Each structure stands twice: as C-alpha cells, then as structure tokens.
C-alpha cells in the first residue's frame, strides 16, 4: 500500500462562483470536472472512481449526481455529506482510496446550488430538533463566539472588519470570485447588521459553484505533469452538533480546527506553523470564524487573531497568506464545493499559477474547512510542491 504522502493532485477545475442563475447543478459540475480533466490531460474514461461533496438534498442525492453530469457510468461514485466540509471530505476519501492502491486515477468534486432556494442566508429548516434549536442561524451559531472571545481577549468589531478588508483585497483580482471589489474598513463597520457583531460584509455571500480535482499517485503523476502537488499532512475531526449545551465548550476556539490541525501537523512534521506554512485557504464563512481559526491553526497566539490580522500578518505578503483567493468572503460558500475549491486554490498557488494573487515562493499550502452550525467538523489538508 502506498502512503497518503504519495498521493498527488494533477488537475483542478472550478466554475465562476456567484449567483449562477443560468447554470444548474449539472452545468456547474460538468464545467468544473472537465476543466480539471483538461488540466490533468486525462479523459473521463480514465476515471476509476469518484467522490462528490453535496450538503443539501435540493442540490442532489447520491453519486449519480456526478455520473449524470460527466457520464462516468459503471464506476463507484460516493456522495459525501459532512456539513461545510462535504467537499474536502470527498477529497479525503479520494486520497485514501488512491493511497490504498485500490484505484490509480480518481476524481473528487463538490457542488452546491443555493440560489434556487432563495437568497436569505442558508436554508436551515429541518436542521436539528423541531423546537429545541429553533432560531439558530449560521451567522448566529458562529457569532456566538464573539461575546466570549471579546470578554476573554478584547477582540473588537474592528478586528473582524480587518478580515473582510484583507480577503476582499485578495478576491478583487480573482476572476472566479463572486465578489471582486475591495472594501474599506469603514464600509465593513457600517454595513447593516446581520447577527450580533456581524454586518453584511462580515458574512460570506450566498453563492453557487462547483470545483473538482483529479487525484493519482505521485509515480503516475509524473507522466502527466512536473508541477503536480502532493499531500504533506491531513487531519479531520468531528465534535458535536450540541456545543451550545456543552459546559466544557468555551467558544474561544473551534475545537475541531484545533484537533484536525494537530493531526495534520503531526503527519506533515510541522512544528512551527507560521514559519512552515506559506499560505492557507482558511474557513472564513464569517469574519469571527477566521479570527478563531488562525489562532487554532497556530498562525498566532490564542487571543491574538484580531490584532495579528489588523497588523497585516495574514496579508498575501504577510507571515502566512490567509485566504489568498479571497476566501469564502469573496467566493461565497456553495457548501459541497468549498473544500474542493480550496484544493483548487492551494494547488494553483503551489504551481505558481495564481495569477495576480500569487504568494511568492509558496512551497506549503493548507486547505482548512470548518463546518456545522458553529465548529462541528473540520478538515485540514496540507499540500506541497516539494518533491
């Protein structure tokens, strides 16, 4: 059996993210998957297995959502659902299958079609208990971290705003981003309030999109391209849907981020993250989410997420480039697609193909994907171009 470190990404594809009213699930999946296959220089007939991340039943059920799009009949295709980590979990399962040598050439992809269901927040009807958790929304679930974090560390609304300013700056030059404009600190601070401290510009938009990656082993990858990237570290962790009832949960850190990062760093042999990770696509569904995440990932001290962001330490030319793509802040969060979209960006960065937003000299990049109403589940994938 091969090692997970022998798994390589040889092609990536992604649609434009946004209010893709003209495109259905099938359109977007096809565009992302064929772009990835063209990038890898392979034909659909070479695919031996597939994994597809989808969160919402209204987007699609089962692996047939993928086979119906790209007509890869007769191969095993698995639908992964794991909240906002659905796409990155599709990627993880694809990597494990390749590492096991069961398959040589597989596809991991994700898609979500949110805008068909209305545009006000993510649909949450039917989530959880009929009455006990009623009223909880995505921004309030994450926003609940703010009062506790502010009390413990003095984090302010302005700290949050710096996350939005940074990510919009990066996303403004990204042709596939939903939002492609810079915003000022003042605009973020003055935007209408959505939930607690989170204004409109502290929240990622409601967007559609799809992304795909072609995965093989490094020894095979060489036949397709020289600049393939390989897995350096991987860690996933699931906590609970019921964190708001858990007396042991303090809202100062996203527990699954901490646990997933520990595992990924251990596998990658990374002991000094801010100096060993060049860039990270870091889950920023809301600005407060990124503040806790950069601390939980060890990019700065616990409690320093706000000031460190404000100081520019996570700018594209900072100590760690956090969300060089523009992040969820600019791409929105078509749930099933997001994790694979992060792999797309990290791969492009490590290949030096991130036009206009390139982190110079990037060798190690991270995809960090957090999901659930609050931090329920997390995946961390560390990729490298070092052979």
């Amino acid at each position, binding site marked *: 059996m091969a090692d997970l470190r022998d798994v390589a990404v040889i092609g990536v594809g992604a649609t434009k993210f946004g209010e893709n009213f003209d495109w259905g699930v099938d359109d977007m999946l096809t565009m992302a998957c064929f772009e990835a296959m063209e990038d890898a220089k392979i034909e659909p007939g070479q695919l031996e297995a597939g994994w597809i991340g989808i969160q919402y039943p209204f987007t699609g059920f089962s692996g047939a959502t993928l086979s119906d799009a790209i007509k890869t009949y007769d191969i095993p295709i698995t639908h992964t659902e794991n909240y906002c980590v659905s796409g990155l979990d599709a990627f993880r399962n694809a990597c494990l299958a390749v590492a096991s040598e069961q398959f040589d050439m597989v596809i991991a992809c994700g898609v979500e079609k949110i805008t068909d269901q209305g545009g*006000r*927040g993510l649909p949450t*009807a*039917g989530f959880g*208990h*009929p*009455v*006990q*958790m*009623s*009223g*909880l*929304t*995505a*921004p*309030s679930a994450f*926003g*609940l971290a*703010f*009062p*506790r974090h502010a*009390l413990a560390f003095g984090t302010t609304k302005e700290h949050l705003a710096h996350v939005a300013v940074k990510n919009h700056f990066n996303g403004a030059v990204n042709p596939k981003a939903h939002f492609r404009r810079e915003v000022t600190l003042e605009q973020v601070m003055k935007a*209408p*309030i*959505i*939930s*607690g401290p989170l204004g409109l510009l502290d929240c990622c938009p409601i967007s559609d999109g799809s992304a795909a990656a072609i995965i093989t082993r490094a020894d095979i990858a060489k036949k397709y391209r020289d600049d393939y990237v390989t897995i350096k570290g991987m860690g996933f962790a699931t906590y*609970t849907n*019921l964190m*708001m*009832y*858990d*007396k*042991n949960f303090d*809202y100062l850190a996203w527990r699954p981020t901490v646990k997933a990062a520990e595992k990924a760093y251990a596998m990658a042999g990374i002991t000094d993250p801010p100096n060993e990770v060049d860039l990270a696509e870091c889950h920023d569904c809301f600005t407060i989410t990124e503040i806790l995440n950069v601390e939980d990932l060890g990019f700065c001290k616990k409690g320093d997420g706000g000031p460190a962001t404000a100081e520019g330490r996570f700018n594209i030319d900072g100590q760690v480039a956090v969300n060089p793509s523009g992040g969820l802040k600019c791409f929105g969060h078509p749930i099933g697609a997001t994790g694979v979209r992060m792999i797309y960006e990290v791969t492009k960065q490590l290949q030096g193909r991130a036009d206009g937003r390139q982190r110079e000299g990037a060798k190690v990049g991270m995809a960090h994907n957090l999901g659930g109403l609050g931090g329920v589940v997390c995946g961390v994938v560390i990729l490298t171009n070092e052979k």
Partner: protein
Amino acid sequence: MAGIIAYGAYIPWLRLERKLIAESWGIPGAPGEIAVANFDEDSVTMGVEAARDCIQDDPEGVGGLYFASTTAPYAAKSSATIVAAVLDLTGESATADFGASLGSALAALIAASEAVDSGAASSILVTAAECQLARPKTADEQTLGDGAGAVLVGKGDAIAEIKGVYSSYDELMGAWKLPGERLTRESNPRWYTARGFIPDIAGAIKEAVASFGVAPDDITKLAVAAPDFRSHQQVAKALGIKDPAKMQDALFAFVGGCGAAQPLMMLAGALEDASPGDKILVAGGGDTYDVVLLEVTDKIKKLAPRRGIKGYLASKSNLDSYARFLARKDMVPMESEENVSSAIQMWRDRKSVLPLYGKKCESCSTVYFPPRRVCPNCHEYDMNVDWKLAKKGTLWNSIDDNLAPNPEPPTTLTITDLDGGGRIFMQMTDREAGTTELGMPVELTFRIIHEGGGFHNYFWKTRPVREGGMENG
C-alpha cells in the same frame, strides 16, 4: 367544603396605551393601557404562567388540572393536558377543558370544588386564560386585554374556604363566534348590558347572597367580572354598593377585560390584599352565571410570596405603535418561516420539551440537556437518571440575530447556565433588544416556537427576570 390553597396570575409583559389605538383611527380614546400577548403567547402559554405562579413550579400533590378559556388554541384537542404536562402533573391527574362561555372559569372552579368534596380528586388546579381578538376600531378593541389567573382548589390549609356556590343562566345573543371565526360578533351592546348582563349578574348575586345566609354588608369584597368598565360600575349601582372600595378592581384600567380569565384574575387580586376573616364574593359570566363566596383564613399569612396581579402588573414594556399591536394580534400578515415538525417526535420527546427534563449522569454528576444515552462530559453509556431542570439561571452567552425570519427582529439567542446544573440553548423573549448582558439572571417561560406540522410547537424560552412580587399577609 373545599377551599383555595393558593392563587396565581399572569399579565403579559407588553402593553399598549389606548390612546395609540384612538390616534390611529381618529376616534375617542379611553385612558389607560391594555395588556398584549406577545407573538409567542397564547391562552395555553399564559395559563401555564398563571398556574406556575400558583403552585410555584411544585406539582407535588396536585391532583388535576382544569383549563378554562374561550380562546383555547385548539378547537378540538385538550389544552388542559398541555398545561398539565408542562407542570409535570402525574398521568393519573384529572384534566378537563372548559370553554365557550365567559363564565367557564367559575364553572371550572365549582367543578373542581365538587371533585375535591366528593373525594374524586385530592386537589385541582384551575387555570383560566384569555387572548381575545377584537374587531379593529370597535370599543372592544380598547377594552379587551390578555391575561390569566389560577387557583389551586383543595382541602386543608386553605387560604380561603368556599362557603357557598350559586349558578344561573340566561339565553340571549350578546357576543358570539361561529366555528372557525377569529373575530367576535356582537349584537347591540347597550341592549345586551342593560337587559342581559347587568340584571342577570346583579340578580344572581342577590339570590346567591340570600341563599348563603350572609348579610350583604358582611361581604368584604365583591369581585365581579364584567364585559367593560361601564357595565362593571353599573353592576355596583344595581347592587346598591356605595363604597367603591368594596368592589374589587376589574383591571380595566391597565390590563383590559380578560374574558373568561377575569374572575380568577380578580380573585387573585382580592386575595393579594385579603386579611383573615374577609368574605370575598366572586361572580362572573355572560350567558352562564356563577357566584362563589369565600372566607379567608389565617393561612393566607403563610402563603409563599408570588408575583400575582401586582407583580406582573409592575413589570412591562409599552408598544410604541398600534401597528406592532396589530401584528401581535395576527391582524397583519408578517414574515414567517416554513417549519418542520413531527407529532411523533414531539410525543417521544414530551418529557424534555414540556416539563423540561434533562439527564443527570450517575457517574460524574453532570446535568445535561438534551437528554442523551451517553454523558457528554464523562462519556459513560446509560448511566443517567431523568433530571428536571430549574426554570431560572444565569445568562452565559447571547447574540441578537437579524437573519432568522421573525416578525420583529432581532431574534435573541441565549445560552444559559441553569441553577442546579445544565447549560441550555434557547431563544429569549420579552426583552428589549440589545439589553442582554452576560451574567444577568434569567428565567424560563413556556412559549410557542412555531406552527410546523400544522400544530402548535411549544418549548421554553429565556427572559429577563420579570421584576416585581409581593409579600403576603
């Protein structure tokens, strides 16, 4: 004979100045305010509040629950059983629903005393609640208010003994609703009060007093429910009562007419100020009429303090517009969310949803909610007991959310550490938005969450502690 063991009341937190109604329509306005049930309140939730005030959340020894209202939330299906389940009464308790007539609360009280006297029940908690809807621009709109009252009827340790009951009826079309109608129809109110209500109730009281063998002057307080302020005064006149202090406040000034709940609310008000030996006469009705004579005992001095009428009257928030009132009366369509529910799941979870049971881990003593088989703290499997959670605690975290559909955003979401253990997530109600502070004391209140599945889905919410209360005796 049976007696009153305890009393309770509930008045919603929201009020509307009558002048805001008058100004909106350009019509004459009466002084004072009416009490207004919030979006998440109905007769069941208010009945629960008054009953909780009455028994102070202790169901021990309560043998039954009678619920009276002309505005019960179900046309078919018991409301009494919802209230009984929330109060955690045993499954053997007698339950019954009384409705249709404004006299239904006193009918329930008399039925309860007969059940106790006959030995059929050790005690019966009678709770009456009303959440009426008046036709906009009518006099009724400025008259009616929302509220609830409750009495525990039993034997021994009575704070007031029942000394006599009297019933009568008169058949006439005063006010009515046809099945499925939300708004009350009425005939000529001048005819109804002059030829129906006033002579009917005054006659009933006179007959009752004569049959009880007490001298009218010996009655300390007359708690006479009436459809409006004017007819209440006219009843006093018809009875020849010169001293206005003898007439128990009918609560029209700052609460409004509470329909079927009014007799029990007035009784609660009378008992708040009563002294041992006082004779209180309670009367009410519309087409059916009931009169009950009570004599206060010295046990009233030992009754634990409770909010009652005075306490709930003291804490309030005034709506700043007539539109906000109409929205709460469901008279203007507001944004709502599609909600999902399951009658079977709500039945399976009834113990955690209604009386609010969590679990206590027998291994590590952690109290937790929602109930699960494995302890979230020490992860022991099936090592737990059912544990009723306290209905008050300390606010640990909160956020005001504008995203969730809500007729009046924001939705305040709270995480509370309950006294005695258990951390719980709930919406907060009856608060000024933006005034929550971590560490503040909160209490729980039973409310409507949504109408998913085509039925009323109730659960608990937090609210800032309603200031107010009184010392008895």
